[in-house]
């Protein structure tokens, strides 16, 4: 299998699908002439022309709304949020229109729309430019919300996102754009609603998605050094949430740690804990632990930023706690 970066895998999914399907257009700020701020769309304007790769003014609400209109007209627009931090300006369009239009039109109108862009922090962009919005968008029925962590998944899930007849919130792990991995050739769709066992283990289940997945793999290595066998679950899909995969895992390991960089309250980790206590009540040998971002707006200084996000040490500690190896 060819090895490519997360960024290239993502671009190739869009480019390949655009070649197959003329109804796909891209919209966003500086995705064309500029090449895309994160170079995800670099070159696509040359390949597909400015009618299909549409540079927009800085008006997230307006162009997301316009993309909904395009979707209603029969196109399959892919909107780039330059970063998801700007999507609060499009929240009304995404939540009030895209998510609900099919329902309140009594099924008369579909919204085959993908909204994509980098999500999450880690590069000192500070308070306004650091958000991890899985729980925020995942709360709303009518949306599909995904958060792929590997080049293979980002490609396969983008193919699925484009073909899906519903509005899809596609949360890329911005910090992983440059990471490499094997990517199956061709048309390998990764369906939504299926978590992935990223590593098998027997003593404790570690659960995350996006940027925290590679972190958990490193944690698992660390734990292995201490003779602790960790199973790592990559949720991949936030809505629908595949509860079965992680519940089964915990029924086997009897212990779990959920890790996310988003804030703790009313988050993905909250829900995973709620599900586990309900579905694996008799299997849990210890309370599920969570490791989340610090309950503060993201700071700029490098040392503060690092202290505010989950680290290997934080997670190792939490794993040891659920194993009653430390307090």
């Amino acid at each position, binding site marked *: 299998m060819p090895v490519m970066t997360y960024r290239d895998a993502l671009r190739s999914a869009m480019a390949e699908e655009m070649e197959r399907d003329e*109804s796909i*257009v891209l919209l966003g700020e500086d995705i064309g002439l500029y090449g895309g701020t994160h170079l995800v769309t670099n070159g696509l304007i040359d390949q597909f022309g400015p*009618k299909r790769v549409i540079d*927009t*003014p800085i*008006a997230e*609400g*307006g*162009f*997301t*709304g*316009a*993309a*909904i*209109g*395009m*979707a*209603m*007209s*029969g*196109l399959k*627009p892919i909107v780039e949020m330059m970063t998801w931090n700007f999507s609060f300006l499009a929240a*009304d*369009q995404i939540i*009030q*229109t895209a998510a609900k*239009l*099919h*329902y*309140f*039109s*009594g*099924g*008369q*109108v*579909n*919204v*085959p729309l993908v909204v994509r862009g980098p999500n999450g922090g880690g590069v000192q962009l500070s308070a306004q430019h650091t958000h991890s919005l899985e729980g925020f968008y995942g709360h709303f*029925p*009518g949306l*599909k919300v995904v958060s792929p962590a590997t080049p293979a998944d980002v490609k396969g899930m983008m193919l699925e996102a484009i073909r*899906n*007849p*519903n509005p899809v919130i596609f949360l890329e792990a911005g910090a992983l754009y440059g990471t490499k991995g094997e990517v199956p050739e061709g048309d390998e769709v990764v369906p939504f609603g299926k978590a992935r066992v990223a590593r098998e283990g027997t003593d404790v289940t570690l659960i995350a998605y996006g940027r925290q997945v590679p972190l958990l793999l490193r944690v698992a290595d660390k734990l292995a050094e201490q003779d602790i066998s960790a199973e790592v679950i990559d949720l991949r899909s936030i*809505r*629908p*949430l595949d509860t079965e995969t992680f519940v089964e895992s915990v029924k086997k390991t009897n212990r779990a740690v959920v890790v996310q960089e988003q804030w703790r309250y009313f988050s993905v980790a909250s829900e995973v804990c709620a599900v586990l206590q*309900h579905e694996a009540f008799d299997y849990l040998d210890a309370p599920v632990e969570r490791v989340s971002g610090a309950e503060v707006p993201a700071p700029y200084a490098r040392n503060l930023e690092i202290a505010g996000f989950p680290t290997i040490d934080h997670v190792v500690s939490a794993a040891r706690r659920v194993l009653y190896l430390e307090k």
Partner: protein
Amino acid sequence: MLLQYLLLPVVFIILVKVARRATRVKSVPYGTISHMSLVPHGEASVSGAAPHSFGTIEEAVVSRASVPDTSTDDRQAAEMDSPSPVDSQTERQAHVAYDAEALVGYYQKMVEIRLFEDATTKAFRQGKIGGYLHVYSGQEATGTAFLGAMKPEKGDVAIAAYRIHAHALLLGAHPNNVMAELYGKGTGIVKGKGGSMHLFHAEGGMLGGYGIVGGHIPLAPGYAYGLRYQGKDGVVQSYLGDGSIHNGAFHEAANLAGLWGKSGMCPTLFILENNQYGMGTSVERATAMTELGRKFESYGIEWERVDGMDVQATLAVAEQVQERVRETGKPYAIEAFGYRIVPHGAADFLEQYRSKEEVAKWREKDPIPLLHGQLIEMGIAEDRLEAIRAEAKAKADEAVKFAEESPDPDLSELLTDVYADDTYVEPAG
């Protein structure tokens, strides 16, 4: 081709002006808004017998100036009086000099809408309709003309806000299903899921039905782009209110429309229904620059103002601008200047924000009695108009009966239509 199109108007405008002057009539006062109000006050029982007449805009302005009233009103009157930019810059053609027979057809449509709205208001008061209810009464001249100019066979569609019963009806939705929707019944036009604010009749080009002020405006330029991208010839009509124009969504949408229009990729006809109030907030309490149509200039969009209370005025421009947009692929804007002669919604009973006198004065310009008077002057028999009203009343009654007798939606409907592809819904808990 385009040039020719732009020159034609000069020739024809005079014909229309002459025609309209011929129907000039004086205004009579109006009280209630109901079935009874569709002919001049006190005239219903003496159909066609007494002399009555309706004012043209120019006359109304003059007579109003002599009545002491809010400065608001004077300013707005003056604005309405001032020529709209297109009138003054490029005189236009009216394709059709509407004859009496054609106007009778429009009368019928307008009366049907009005009586439908009267029935909805009554049902709301009886507690049979829930949620919000915003009726279109008084704005019929605008919707009837512009929606009437749509060519569904070419892919034309309309996207509007929440004051939209008329839009659905005029685009071919059956009154029974619209009424059933308001009753929240399973036979409703969107299965009882949307209610008054979310009517859709995709088949007829009626694409909603949105409740967030301003939120629907960006959809139109996107849809319009989609049409041209797919090589289709359609035009998108985007209806918006005077209150919504101050919302950021308008600004962003209009700017996109202007921008995409530069390359002919945005056939959008904006129809700004300036009924002078966004709920309880009058135009000049909402903005320092009250000439609302001018706001389109910021986006390079040409516009003109029409009298939204007079169906002959709206008809005079509707088809032409619709075709202009189709031809150019560029957005164009209409400010239909009128007045909300009814409360904002069925629950707006206090109306502390405007005077009874102001409302009464504008009710004198109610477009339906205005047209009624014009038709009588043109020699249409009151009997015939009376019959139209009776038929429309019967239709509305039939819609109510249908709605009342329809079953509630099946409870299983709660979980359908969440996603387009399947019936999967996340488990609650």
